[in-house]
């Protein structure tokens, strides 16, 4: 084996070794790398009960209830299309917060199983289009729904 070939093998093995080590570490810490829990995971009791965690999901259409002038609490539900979870939040919602939009909330479950959020972040999706196209898509879906 020439020295050059030897160096090639040493480098290849080092990169492979580091790759395997990192893959094992990431697998071991998989749960900690998840940025948020889904409503299904919360329903299965996988989320921590005694400390704050993040809950992510889609805001259920028609579920947003804003409180009156004295009570600024916003109540809504999030879903992962399998389970739903009620969220109560007092504070300023981000611009992109709307029904049907993905969000991530930070908070804790109360005794009734309602997720009391201290912060709500909007999760943007990867779709970009002009308003006219979005409107056309919406109209297309509405006409499809209208047909029997």
């Amino acid at each position, binding site marked *: 084996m020439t020295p*050059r070939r030897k*160096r*090639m093998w040493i*480098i290849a093995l*080092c*990169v492979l070794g*580091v*790759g395997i080590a*990192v893959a094992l570490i*990431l697998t071991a810490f*998989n749960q900690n*790398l*998840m*940025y*948020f829990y*889904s409503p299904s995971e919360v329903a299965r009791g996988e989320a921590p009960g005694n400390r704050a965690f993040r809950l*992510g999901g889609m805001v259920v259409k028609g579920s947003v209830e804003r409180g009156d002038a004295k009570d600024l609490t916003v109540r809504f539900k999030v879903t992962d299309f399998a389970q739903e979870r009620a969220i109560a939040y007092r504070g*300023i*919602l*981000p*611009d*992109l917060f709307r029904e049907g939009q993905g969000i*991530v909330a930070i908070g804790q479950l109360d005794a009734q199983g309602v997720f009391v959020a201290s*912060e*709500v*972040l*909007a*999760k*943007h*999706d*990867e*779709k*970009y*289009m*002009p*308003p*006219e*196209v*979005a*409107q056309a898509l919406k109209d297309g879906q509405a006409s499809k729904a209208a047909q029997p």
Partner: protein
Amino acid sequence: MNFAFLHKYASLMHFYRLSHTLTPWLAAATLALFAWGLVGGLLLAPTDYQQGDSFRIMYVHVPAAWMSMFVYVTMAVAGGVALIWKLKLAEIVSRACAPLGASFTFLALVTGSIWGKPMWGTWWVWDARLTSELILLFLYLGVIALHGALDDRRAGARAGAVLALIGVVNIPIIHFSVEWWSTLHQGATVSKFSKPSIHIDMLIPLLVMISAFQCYFAWSLLVRVRSEILDYDRNASWVRELGRAQEAGR
């Protein structure tokens, strides 16, 4: 296979002379593509249906993030070639990549943060995508530091190349982080295997901006490599002659 013919191109003197004609072309391509991409992206592209005009920051953010990974792979490949074949030119290329890549990474992090505040509602979160991109910045800084840490330039290049190669494991992590784990950062908009989920009028300026960043990288890398070559070979007769010719021309 015999690669002896490549030695000519790997020689610092030949590379310096050959690259001379390339630089003005790359500079012109960079300027033209930036002009097209910036006007197309910031003025002509339609506004987004949800984000309005704020989405336009992606015309800087996406190319910068893409380049942060592209430059890293270039740096690591050049570092590997430098370690295996002990080519001076590869050492110089690997060293010249590091500050450029660090700047692209920094730009991606800053523009993402500026976009994140109004859209997500926060400047920064420790999700897998953002954290792995921050680690990439630290890897670049480590490579820069290792290159400068040793008095012997070639020993420094070897140390930097080793870190660059080890850090390459971070590149697939950055790319797939949005698929492997739940993250606040959205998934990929433009991918090779499926139809991009972006309107064509918004996509074209984005692709132009990515090519503009690519050309800018190639141009500035070449300029850096050329000046490094002169410094590296400053005692060689061809550089002395070059110096004398410039003196005479003045």
